[in-house]
């Protein structure tokens, strides 16, 4: 196992920087993600690597059409590729996690022997996993069923209740859990902007999606473009602008939010990325885009470069 004193030191020194690095990478990677489980899997690997966590698991409550709930394992990652996952992905651990999901609480880092049965604790100790901790994450967003689920299982989008479970060789640094929690909170915010999770009530309109998307059945149908993936382009040619008089071609935009957004548009960032970088919420972004489109300062493109009709945008929001 890779966790060692140097690992603890790296957690202590680099926690804030690692958080920033992970979130920055996630913003780039999430553009191509089609399901929340892809994000969870990526996060579990990157957090394990960068913050030196031996094994990381994401568990979530899963509701079924029958009204029953179960604790589903959404993603697991181990720093040791040869580590047999059945050591941690088993009924014993699932039972503990289910209790924690019900209580909506967390567990501070402690020896595995004080949490699990002696048999499970021995098994974990054999693979140098001596400590365990977890924390709970909850929000109003709906988590779609597992990517790998057969629709006939009866799993339905469920209000997000998650437990992040960590196994480590040594006692984790006190900053580790809060750091991972902050990363997960940011990640869920990005997931919401990307349409990977949706709001309760109206999964389609709450994502503000002018091109229809079907979050709950995204495995049954090919995933369609979401509003947040569209890329605004300025109608001014940036290269030509450098050769033009800045006094003559200054665009006067009366709306302050629209002006801020306009100057942030670079023809590469999507609407979600612009909203993140400008710290604007969905409503502000839509309002600013509507203003800029009506004034004919920008147009919207799909990620593949194809221009979309602005009138379609106005009809759908």
């Amino acid at each position, binding site marked *: 196992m890779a966790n060692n004193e140097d690992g603890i030191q790296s957690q202590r020194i680099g926690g804030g920087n690692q958080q920033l690095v992970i979130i920055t990478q996630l913003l780039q990677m999430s553009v191509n993600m089609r399901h929340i489980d892809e994000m969870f899997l990526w996060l579990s690997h990157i957090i394990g690597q960068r913050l030196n966590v031996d094994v990381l698991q994401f568990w979530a409550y899963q509701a079924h059409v029958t009204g029953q709930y179960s604790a589903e394992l959404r993603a697991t990652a181990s720093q040791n590729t040869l580590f047999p996952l059945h050591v941690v992905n088993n009924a014993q651990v699932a039972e503990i996690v289910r209790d924690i999901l019900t209580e909506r609480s967390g567990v501070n880092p402690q020896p595995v022997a004080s949490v699990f049965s002696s048999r499970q604790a021995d098994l974990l100790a054999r693979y140098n996993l001596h400590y365990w901790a977890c924390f709970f994450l909850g929000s109003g967003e709906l988590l779609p069923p597992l990517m790998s689920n057969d629709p006939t299982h009866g799993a339905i989008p469920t209000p997000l209740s998650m437990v992040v479970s960590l196994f480590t060789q040594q006692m984790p640094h006190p900053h580790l859990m809060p750091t991972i929690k902050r990363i997960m909170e940011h990640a869920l915010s990005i997931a919401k902007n990307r349409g990977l999770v949706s709001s309760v009530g109206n999964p389609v309109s709450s994502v503000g999606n002018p091109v229809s998307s079907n979050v709950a059945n995204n495995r049954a149908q090919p995933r369609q473009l979401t509003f947040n993936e569209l890329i605004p382009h300025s109608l001014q040619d*940036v*290269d*030509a*602008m*450098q*050769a*033009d*008089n*800045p*006094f*003559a071609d*200054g*665009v*006067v*935009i009366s709306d302050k939010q629209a*002006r801020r957004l306009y*100057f*942030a*548009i*670079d023809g590469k960032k999507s609407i979600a990325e612009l909203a993140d970088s400008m710290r604007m919420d969905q409503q502000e972004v839509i309002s600013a885009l509507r203003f800029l489109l009506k004034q004919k300062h920008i147009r919207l493109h799909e990620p593949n470069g194809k221009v979309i009709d602005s009138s379609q945008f106005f009809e759908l929001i």
Partner: protein
Amino acid sequence: MNISTLTGILLFIFSVLCLGTGIYAFRRYSLTQSERLFAVGLAMCITAVGIACGALDNLHALPSLNLGWAWYTGTSLGFFFLFLSSIMKSAEQFQFLKRWGIIAAAVLITVIVLTPVFPAYPNAYVPLTLNSLRTIACLLGFLRYVMLYTSKGTRFSLLMCLAFLFITVGYAILMPQLLDPTLVQLTAVGAFIRIIGAGVLFTAFVLG
């Protein structure tokens, strides 16, 4: 009227033209909030202040102070930032330039404030090196606008190219005089050429 006084007056006119362009840029910035205009305005104001120090130095208005340091600093930084504003593309890059422009302005103010403690040039190579720096900054601007003119062919890029050419020549022509102070006429000739450059620069921004 001696050469030094004439040079001082010409520099003063140069300074006023640059300051006027800078103020105009800030006025347009207040309407458009374009970071590019802020960068241009700040660059021109830094240049104007630097040139004004040079004018005072040539007019011997403050004979105990060596305002040459502020002159070289202001003109080097100002023209360099004007060149940089022509290569920036995105809003983030212009914000980055804006921050560094403000730092450059602070550096110039610091140099001006510390002028009383600055020594005289120890030898001719110091002002020669300082003059070379601003000549290179202007040369970069000239080359950049040549590239823009050949690729885009706009009137603005042509005028800026000519402006930087005149200003570059106007500074380069001072080199022999810095090594041989008897060639004092070159200071007036250089100042005159730079005035033409400033006029073309002003024309570019107003009419380009």
